């Protein structure tokens, strides 16, 4: 209930432009220009955008983004409390089931499971009904009740699944950091592996992974039953028999020269993933998460049950970093840029750009503070909450900032791409051309010259005669229809006329002149199909260019390397559109953005 109220509060603050600034001077949900007040925070310039819900199976608890491969959109994998694995190839716009949830373990006491789930649901519902408002007992808001009922049902379903399998494993999903095809999933029935980017899965081990790290050629995994490692890309797992004593591992992290394992019994570390020892300073503390500081060799943040602490010397000493009172910190994610972090807390995501001195809520348009997992896509966080998956995006008002260049109209680009030379279907508009062809004659012009000379002698009469005759003629002839057998006069035999037909090949088919119309129809169909394809490709390329254009508003906040990559993405999108429009996109873009004559 507390989480819900906090979520509503956050959402209300985020949407309220008149909300007073927080202690740091940053107004949550402020207009884009507010970034000047708080520095280069994502909070000032971006908002959460919903990217999918799986409430029919239970809330998502695990989320992973595949490694980038060229300019391809990375695959997202999500797993819900029921163990269902979901896969998206378009950054969450559409999702498909990659694997169904667990089957009930044999011997499970179904009646006990249902009673447990029902008790949990009743507790949650009662907490809403009995919550006083301003000290006075009042009827709860029906929409709030409906939301809580839905959540309670989700939790009940999760309890059933966990109890059926005799464990309380939180389903997790993991992608190899450099191989986008290799993925692992840990859920109540063990660990599953995919070698095709999450399309198909094979069961590999009974212990469910909670986190995985790559150490040289080894995969080191934290499980509910200690640390395990694999030398064959996760096909087989070997239990590490060492000082961790099989403590459930919540998180693994490579930081400096150590691999850290966060457990409820303390923080363990290992140099090779095989031999582990407890970090003396944190022995006995319940450690939730460890995060390496990529901008400080040997630096790391450690989250314990009560505080966020840090080491700068490879775990030799630790100190408290948390000036702001972040509640219930669960995970810290470093972004690109030294000191730029996101903390996942019980109050939702918070952001800092000074290594944790000042935190601002990163909650714009986020209605659910209960974040279960977080992954990075192109350097920006994607989070899994009870109400679905969210990614950061530039809100509409930012997209409309003047910084975004006006692009040539999509329909203009599609029209140009579809009517390039060779794709103009008007060339084969059959009905009109058949009429025109029928009305157009065949024309013959004949010019003939003859000369005849001779002498005649009559021997009886002793008489001679001679002659020399010259004649010429000109004939013009126009013929409509089948002229071969009748009008020409030179081809009078119908059998000869048949030889006047010629065979010709179009595509993979052979036609004779008599079937030219059929050939034209087939060619026209091919052109129409390809015009549709061209429209789809150009639309996709234009939309990508539009997204890049909108992101331009916040690109200046990113490190130089990311800005260069963004510039290359823009150049590639332009080049693709130019290829399909024979350069029209760049020409129109230059024309639209040419300085006006009044501009000094």
């Amino acid at each position, binding site marked *: 209930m507390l989480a819900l109220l906090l979520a509503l509060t956050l959402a209300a603050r985020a949407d309220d432009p008149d909300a007073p600034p927080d202690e740091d001077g940053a107004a949550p949900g402020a207009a884009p220009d507010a970034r000047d007040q708080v520095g280069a925070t994502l909070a000032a310039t971006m908002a959460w955008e919903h990217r999918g819900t799986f409430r029919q199976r239970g809330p998502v608890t695990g989320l992973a983004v595949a490694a980038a491969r*060229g*300019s391809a959109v990375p695959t997202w994998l999500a797993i819900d409390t029921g163990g269902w694995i979901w896969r998206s190839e378009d950054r969450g716009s559409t999702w498909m089931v990659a694997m169904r949830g667990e089957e009930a373990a044999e011997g499970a006491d179904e009646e006990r499971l249902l009673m447990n789930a029902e008790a949990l649901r009743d507790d949650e519902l009662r907490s809403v009904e009995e919550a006083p408002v301003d000290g006075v007992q009042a009827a709860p808001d029906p929409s709030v009740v409906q939301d809580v009922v839905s959540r309670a049902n989700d939790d009940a379903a999760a309890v059933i699944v966990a109890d059926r399998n005799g464990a309380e494993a939180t389903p997790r999903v993991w992608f190899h950091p450099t191989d986008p095809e290799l993925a692992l999933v840990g859920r109540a029935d063990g660990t599953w592996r995919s070698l095709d980017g999450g399309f198909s899965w094979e069961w590999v081990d009974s212990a469910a992974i909670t986190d995985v790290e790559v150490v040289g050629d080894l995969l080191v995994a934290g499980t509910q039953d200690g640390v395990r490692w694999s030398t064959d890309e996760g096909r087989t797992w070997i239990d590490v028999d060492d000082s961790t004593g099989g403590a459930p591992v919540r998180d693994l992290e490579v930081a400096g020269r150590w691999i850290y394992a966060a457990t409820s019994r303390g923080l363990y570390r290992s140099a090779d993933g095989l031999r582990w020892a407890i970090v003396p300073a944190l022995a006995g503390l319940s450690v939730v998460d460890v995060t390496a500081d990529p901008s400080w060799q040997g630096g790391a943040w450690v989250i314990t049950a009560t505080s966020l602490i840090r080491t700068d010397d490879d775990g030799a000493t630790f100190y408290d970093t948390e000036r702001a009172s972040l509640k219930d910190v669960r995970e810290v994610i470093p972004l690109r840029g030294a000191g730029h972090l996101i903390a996942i807390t019980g109050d939702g995501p918070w952001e800092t750009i000074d290594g944790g001195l000042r935190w601002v809520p990163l909650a714009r348009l986020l209605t659910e503070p209960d974040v279960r997992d977080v992954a990075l896509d192109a350097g920006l966080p994607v989070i899994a909450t009870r109400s679905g998956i969210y990614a950061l995006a530039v809100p509409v008002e930012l997209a409309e900032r003047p910084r975004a260049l006006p692009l040539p109209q999509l329909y203009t680009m599609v029209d140009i791409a579809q009517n*390039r*030379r*060779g*794709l103009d279907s008007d*060339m*084969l508009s059959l009905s009109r*051309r*058949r009429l*025109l*062809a*029928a009305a*157009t*004659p*065949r*024309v*013959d*012009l*004949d*010019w*003939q*010259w*003859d*000369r*005849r*000379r*001779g*002498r*005649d*002698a009559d*021997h*009886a009469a002793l008489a001679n005669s001679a002659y020399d005759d010259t004649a010429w003629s000109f004939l013009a002839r126009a013929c409509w229809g089948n002229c071969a057998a009748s009008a020409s006069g030179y081809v009078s035999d119908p059998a000869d006329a048949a030889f006047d037909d*010629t065979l*010709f*090949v*179009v*595509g993979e088919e052979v*036609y004779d*002149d008599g079937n*030219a119309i059929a*050939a034209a129809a087939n*060619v026209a169909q*091919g*052109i129409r199909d*390809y015009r549709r394809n061209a429209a789809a490709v150009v639309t996709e390329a234009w939309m990508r260019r539009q997204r890049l254009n909108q992101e331009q508003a916040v690109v200046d906040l990113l490190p*130089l*390397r990311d*800005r*260069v*990559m963004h*510039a*290359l993405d823009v*150049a*590639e999108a332009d*080049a*693709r559109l*130019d*290829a*399909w429009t024979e350069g029209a996109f760049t020409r129109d873009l230059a024309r639209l953005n040419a300085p006006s004559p009044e501009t000094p």
Partner: protein
Amino acid sequence: MIPFLVALTLAAEPVHAGEFRSVDDVLARFDGEPGIGDVQRMVLETTKTDPSYVDKWLAASVNAAWLPEFTFTWDHDSRYNRDYDYIASTTPDGEPTSQIDQSAVDTADGLQLRAKWNLDKLVMSSERIRVISEAQDVVKLRDKVLEEVTRLYFDRRRLQVEMLMGNGDLKAQLKNELRLQELTAQLDAYTGGRFTAALGAQTSR
């Protein structure tokens, strides 16, 4: 080969990322290389898929119908004729005696020039259908190779930026170097070697 190695050396030259101040600073490092527009033109030239080819074919398929089909015929006829008259006297062998009655020499020459236009082929003809079909195939091929070359070009440029600004270990640098060579070779395959030639030409200036 030498320009190729020069280009690779240029791309792989270790540079401290901190010396760049802006996106333009970074991209200026590649000013000596052909731009994507240049590479696309190279591909069109190599694959003969430039739109101007399609224009020429389509125009030729129509203009061909304006040319007539010519037929030239020359006819020569030469005749020689004699008529004989047989009289009552006979030869010693008993054969009848003949004497020429009439003779004629006749020569005839004829020239014929014939021009034939199938004007309906200005509107539609099997040749034009074939050309339109081929033109469509050319457009498809052009789209395919330009998409692929554009992808290769920018994959290569991103890798160059990574190599320029990254600080990977030796193994990663070797891997990147090989990948760069692979992408360069693929671009050469599409451009008939013009890409590397242009790299060398612009580097040597």
